[in-house]
């Protein structure tokens, strides 16, 4: 077990920036060397791509295609809904097979709505964009390109990037580019920086141009020397003085947004606030490269680099895969499973979650697929009672009281847990790692958070039901009153006449007169009545008389 890293020595090559120390944290065995030295490999084109409509924080995207539609690479297939959301693009050309529920990477193992595309292997793109100088583009256009590309935070949280940039809504004093990949095993950002430093730096310049920060820092971890030299070379080539590179010590979780800000500046992001509240923006390097692709190449976010690692796979490596590629294919690309594989985790060993099978797609936020053996990561022993040793409190990088949160969550006293700032917990897993009683503390906090959200949802739903019910009662009352008013009016109208029968009779008489008149008119036009003899005329008159008599008789009936 690693020691809680209380003290640290400032790295030697840091003559300029005074670094700070966040509370708690751990020194963990890295396991990153397994994949950090091998180049990124392209995943083979899968036969089918499965794209969940929700791959980000916020509202799920709204589907724009129908089954049977042909799509080209980069075509928007789902659009963002509301402000905090992100669209989706077809990662390659093919045909939309279906829009249906499929298993996705989620701890629940539940299914979610996905667009399924059958690839045609041609990888046809839309119109090819002309490369532009981003300095010539208006700010709105730049932000629009980032928004239209569906970029979300690729470090794992998946917060839509355009929202974070705020597109110049507030003055930014510090832009931090986060290359601190602090969680063990994960090396996708490390490889990205080593191989595509130019794209990363160009992306940083674009972000710099958009947010106009007073200062811009690329933060990198101590162990990433190859990545550091690649960045330094690139910065020297571009003669950049506005961007500085800072190495931070290897303490988990220094790659967390709040922890990194604390390390670099000594400032703390307010409880339940955002870095923007203190004039800072933190972006992952992967996101930076995606911004470069979106703005310069006009390519939306359709692929990402995933670390496929652990002793459970034959050839651990970083693989660039299209969004929607099945995890099973990435495992196959990494040489398949070893005989002793025990569990499959999505995400790293500290914050990741176990999934039941590998028939799930790669999403925008999936940075690591970890197949572990039982020796490598034994199943957690059964939890024992808390002995109140307070090791968790010492380790907590958010400076919370994990023990108190644990007690309150166990006793379902969620209000108290919230008072103890449950929602500032970043679920880094440090507390559970150091717990001598092996209590799965993070799972308690995740449960408590979800329970609180559910309650809030229920409150919203019941408020809505109350509104609907009250509106209905109001409507029924209004209808009742209107009906009563109509009845009263009618009654009044009827009561206004002296004899109710007289008007009826008059109406009937008027109708009869009308009929009579019509009949008489029709008689007047009788044909062949000219040049009649006196005898004929007599006969006609008699007939007319009979007819008149019979008609008056029937009218009297």
């Amino acid at each position: 077990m690693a020691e809680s890293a209380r003290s640290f020595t400032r790295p030697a090559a840091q003559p300029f920036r005074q670094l700070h120390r966040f509370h708690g944290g751990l020194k963990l065995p890295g396991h990153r060397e397994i994949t950090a030295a091998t180049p990124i490999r392209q995943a083979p084109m899968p036969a089918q791509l499965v794209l969940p409509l929700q791959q980000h924080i916020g509202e799920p995207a709204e589907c724009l295609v129908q089954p049977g539609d042909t799509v080209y690479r980069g075509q928007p297939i789902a659009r963002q809904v509301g402000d905090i959301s992100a669209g989706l693009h077809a990662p390659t050309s093919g045909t939309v097979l279906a829009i249906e529920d499929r298993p996705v990477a989620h701890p629940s193992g539940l299914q979610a709505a996905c667009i399924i595309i059958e690839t045609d292997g041609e990888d046809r793109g839309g119109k090819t964009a002309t490369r532009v100088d981003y300095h010539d583009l208006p700010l709105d256009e730049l932000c629009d390109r980032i928004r239209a590309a569906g970029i979300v935070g690729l470090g794992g949280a998946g917060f839509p990037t355009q929202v974070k940039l705020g597109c110049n809504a507030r003055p930014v004093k510090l832009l931090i580019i986060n290359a601190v990949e602090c969680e063990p095993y994960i090396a996708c950002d490390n490889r990205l920086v080593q191989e595509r430093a130019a794209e990363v730096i160009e992306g940083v310049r674009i972000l710099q141009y958009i947010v106009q920060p007073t200062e811009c820092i690329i933060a990198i971890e101590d162990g990433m020397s190859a990545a550091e030299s690649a960045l330094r070379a690139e910065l020297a080539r571009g003669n950049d003085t506005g961007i500085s590179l800072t190495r931070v010590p290897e303490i988990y979780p220094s790659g967390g947004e709040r922890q990194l800000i604390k390390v670099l500046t000594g400032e703390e992001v307010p409880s339940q606030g955002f870095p923007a509240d203190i004039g800072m923006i933190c972006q992952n390097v992967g996101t930076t490269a995606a911004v470069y692709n979106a703005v310069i190449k006009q390519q939306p976010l359709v692929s990402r680099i995933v670390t496929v690692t652990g002793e459970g796979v034959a050839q651990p490596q970083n693989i660039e895969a299209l969004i929607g590629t099945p995890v099973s294919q990435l495992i196959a690309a990494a040489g398949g499973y070893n005989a002793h594989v025990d569990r499959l985790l999505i995400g790293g060993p500290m914050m990741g979650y176990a999934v039941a099978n590998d028939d799930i797609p790669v999403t925008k936020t999936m940075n690591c697929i970890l197949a572990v053996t039982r020796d490598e990561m034994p199943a957690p022993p059964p939890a024992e009672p808390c002995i109140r040793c307070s090791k968790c409190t010492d380790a907590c990088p958010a400076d919370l009281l994990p023990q108190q949160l644990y007690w309150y969550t166990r006793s379902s006293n969620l209000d108290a847990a919230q008072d103890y700032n449950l929602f500032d917990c970043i679920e880094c897993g440090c507390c559970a790692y150091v717990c001598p009683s092996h209590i799965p503390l993070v799972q308690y906090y995740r449960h408590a958070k979800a329970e609180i959200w559910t309650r809030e949802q229920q409150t919203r739903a019941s408020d809505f039901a109350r509104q609907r019910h009250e509106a209905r009662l109001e409507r029924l009352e209004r209808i009742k009153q209107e009906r009563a008013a109509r009845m009263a009016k009618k009654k009044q109208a009827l009561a206004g006449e002296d004899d109710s029968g007289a008007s009826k009779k008059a109406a009937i008489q008027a109708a009869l007169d009308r009929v009579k008149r019509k009949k008489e008119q029709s008689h007047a036009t009788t044909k062949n009545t000219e040049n009649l003899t006196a005898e004929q005329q007599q006969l006609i008159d008699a007939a007319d008389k009979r007819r008149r008599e019979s008609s008056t008789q029937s009218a009297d009936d």
Partner: protein
Amino acid sequence: MLTALLALGVLAALIGLVLGYAAIRFHVDSDPVVEQIDKLLPQTQCGQCTYAGCRPYAEAIAAGEADINQCPPGGEATINALADLLGRDPKPLNPEHGEHSEKTVVIIDEQVCIGCTLCIQACPVDAIVGAAKQMHTVIRDECTGCDLCIPPCPVECIHIVPLQPRIGNWVWPQPGEQDDRQVVHG
């Protein structure tokens, strides 16, 4: 002596005036206790408590006419919350009013529906859409699961279905609850 009496009298009159003004100025029309109780009720509007809806039940509780354990959809959580608000002891749900169950919604079998509008008239939250001799359907997100539409239906085409677990409403199980997908801690 007289000065003291006078002073007190004037003070009393002044305070009386201020209080009287405040009573008019800050007058609250409805009973805030009723509002608070109503807020804790689940707003299913099912009438299982024998009152015509959640608000009449809240009014009855406030008036001391009804007990706090008559709401089956709210179950134990609502009883505890009401007990907490009113400073009473929580008690088990009165079985006369029904049993607590997980929230359900109803669906209309559209093949069988004859478009009689009886369910529309029964729905307390206007969650059923349709017109005479036209197909009816339930707006799932607005259905409170009160089941009031089921008895009037002449062709029994309304069915109760449990809410499907979705990623959006899934809750991490509390450790110790049966779950084989344990979170892994390095």
